[in-house]
């Protein structure tokens, strides 16, 4: 049973895993430094924040929604968190705790707003979160007066660069988030509803549920993940800034979609999202190591994003082809 499940999982994610493996192989072949422990640590660090955001985004996309505001909300959350943590006269411990809570709360509130407006007025999340993208960015700039906030407590900063046997702490956080997200999607009633609503919202409603609650919750979860990502960001770079996170939404969505989640909802997995985030990270890192120029790198990145998804499709197809004929009992 277990073995079969593992096999299924492998095959399901095989396409995208293959793309990743291929890419990694290529890079380590061309540049021996790629596979060094130090470089792997770098990659782990670099994908952590996108991974956490992408986990939140997965919930929203599984519902057939989208969240364009993650980058701006991240900035707002770091600014609020930064103001709290650098608040004069508060001792370190409480300031850190409050700051973390504040960042997460900001993220959740923004997510809640997104979800609530979408559901209350039945507006597509694209437009609502596009609004939020502007609102949160404006608010972040206003609150911070567009200044970078710094001088965080050393204890806080230390976490961001701490590693265990080459594995950075913030990657451990990201991995935990992925596992938790996976568990929620596969094992809980909430996760079940997310998939079901993404597939056929009307059928869910007529089965006696209120899809709106779950949808608002999904946006809130996404916001909370962004808040957490903001904390990780502050730990990693030791600054808060209202201009961060521009374009993060595209990276997160790319990770989710490369990972095989359907933009129209209902289909997808957290494991896929994680692999998608890895592809994005390895790509960035590898192409740099190859010493490719900025513009060429941009083009190649664009191409590979597409190619990775194509490989995924091919594998999936080939897989089903091999299965079909022998599939009858």
């Amino acid at each position, binding site marked *: 049973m277990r073995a079969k499940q593992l096999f299924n999982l492998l095959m399901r994610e095989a396409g995208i895993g293959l793309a990743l493996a291929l890419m990694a192989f290529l890079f380590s072949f061309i540049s021996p430094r790629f596979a060094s422990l130090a470089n792997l640590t770098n990659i782990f660090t670099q994908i952590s924040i996108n991974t956490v955001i992408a986990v939140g985004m997965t919930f929203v996309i599984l519902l057939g929604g989208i969240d364009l505001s993650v980058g701006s909300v991240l900035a707002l959350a770091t600014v609020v968190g930064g103001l709290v943590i650098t608040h004069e006269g508060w001792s370190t411990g409480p300031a850190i705790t409050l700051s973390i809570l504040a960042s997460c709360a900001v993220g959740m509130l923004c997510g809640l707003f997104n979800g609530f407006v979408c559901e209350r007025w039945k507006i597509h999340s694209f437009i609502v979160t596009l609004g939020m993208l502007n609102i949160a960015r404006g608010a972040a700039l206003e609150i911070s007066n567009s200044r970078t906030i710094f001088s965080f407590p050393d204890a806080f900063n230390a976490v961001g660069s701490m590693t265990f046997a080459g594995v950075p702490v913030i990657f451990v956080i990201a991995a935990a988030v992925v596992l938790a997200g996976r568990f929620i999607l596969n*094992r809980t009633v909430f996760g079940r509803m997310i998939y079901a609503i993404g597939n056929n919202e009307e*059928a869910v409603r007529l089965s*006696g549920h209120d899809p709106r609650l779950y949808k608002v919750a999904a946006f809130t979860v996404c916001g909370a993940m962004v808040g957490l990502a903001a904390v990780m960001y502050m730990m990693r770079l030791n600054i808060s800034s209202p201009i961060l996170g521009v374009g993060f939404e595209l990276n997160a969505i790319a990770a989710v979609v490369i990972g095989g989640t359907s933009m129209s909802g209902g289909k997808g997995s957290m494991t896929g999202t994680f692999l998608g985030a890895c592809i994005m990270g390895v790509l960035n890192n590898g192409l740099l190591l190859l010493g490719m120029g900025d513009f060429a790198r941009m083009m190649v990145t664009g191409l590979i994003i597409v190619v990775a998804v194509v490989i995924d499709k091919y594998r999936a197809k080939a897989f089903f082809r091999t299965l079909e004929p022998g599939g009858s009992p």
Partner: protein
Amino acid sequence: MDAGATAGGADLIELSGITKRFPGVVALDRVDLAIRRGEVHVLVGQNGAGKSTLVKLLCGVYTPDEGRILLDGAPYAPRSTLAAIRAGVRVVYQEFNLLPYLSVAENIFFQRLPRRLGIVDFARLYRDAETVLAEVGLAVSPRARVETLGVAQMQLLEIAKALSTRSKVLILDEPTATLTPREIGRLFEIVARLKARGVTIVYISHRLQEVFDIGDRITVLRNGRTVQTLAAREATIPQIVKLMVGKEVSEEYPFRADVAPGAEALRVEDLRTVGGRHALSFAVRRGELVGVAGLVGSGRTEAMRALFGADRKASGRVLRDGREVAIRSPREAVRHGMSLLTEDRKAHGLVLDMSCAVNVTLTDLARVSHAGLLDVRAERSAAERLVAELAIKTPSVDQLARNLSGGNQQKLVIAKWLFRDAAVLVFDEPTRGIDVGARYEIYGLLWRLAAEGKAILIVSSDLPELMGICHRILVFSGGRITGEVPRAEFGQERILSLAYQEYVRDRREAATAGTAAAGAG
């Protein structure tokens, strides 16, 4: 293949050794079949016997794994629906394939819109559409958006689509599942006219009586194999049922006069749907089966949806077990012990891309979870129990709902509501697309539920079915309840005249007012 053995020249379509497999299922198993030029050839068989699969092979949706097809004596292997249409094969599919936001006229002629230099000739489009609509008796404006139509109207529209082009072969996969006698009559006229024009017709239905009304020959499929082809004139219903099921089936309605209904479980007072002109009042008692009859579009579905909170209602009181309850959403309805099996299984009944198990337990996840955590094992076993109980044909409860045959999907919707175990059950067209054998099993099941004290409302366009199993029948006509007939007074004529009442009156009034009579019916 006794009756099927004829001279090769007379056969328009010839299938030999056709096999089609899906993961875990052999849908068609070395099927041989010959369809003569200009005949109405009926395919019957239990749910999941392979009828729709056969249709999809003929129209280029699937390609066979083995075997070959001859059309007009030449090898026929359409690679796409376009190829099939070019070869003269058209289909009315079991499931709708409409464009909800486009107009009725555009839907009818979508295959080839009348045009000049790539610009649509709307004047001609609407004119032609009026003709076709009149032919099938669908009283809607050709400009109306399809999303505003009811299920039965959509079914008629599907038929109208098939009439928009001339074809050699017309395949109708369960066209009458939601139609009432009036529309069925009109459909048969159309079929007869087409046949007279030399069109070959393949006709699939679970309503065996009509098979004899229009069929020339009947082929019975069982478990993906052709059992026998017989001439309609020589066949009898019991004979066919036996061939379909493989054994004798008791064709007895389970009605028991000795089971008396108990206390009132549901009372509806002055229910008015949004846009509805009439206030509706009715009641159902525990252990009672109440039928809801009416013509297409008479407002039955609208009333049930409003009652269940699926649509907003304009006004009305609902009493459950004597206490007034507020029902503003399906969620509240379910909380107050009600369930509604919707008439459109694909759009409203099932989560098609999820497993059977997920669909079954969707109505009551609390029963298969603890503190928000799913108990996957409990879920599977609950689903397996219901799949077995309803004899749903599927390799496992992990199969996606999408991959079930139409009738088995319908059973799955029933299963999901049985899982909820509500006190008041509203079924809108519950036997739509369900084969005879299973039909009687479901009647038995409904009776068992009644015996347990459930209050049951059944909306159905199949009058004999309602008369067979109900205590009472409410008749809808033009959005109002025109009568309530107790079992003792059941009779086709009585009920039909109530069902026509409003339309006849409308016409009379229209005539006296001197305006052009436009009303339906």
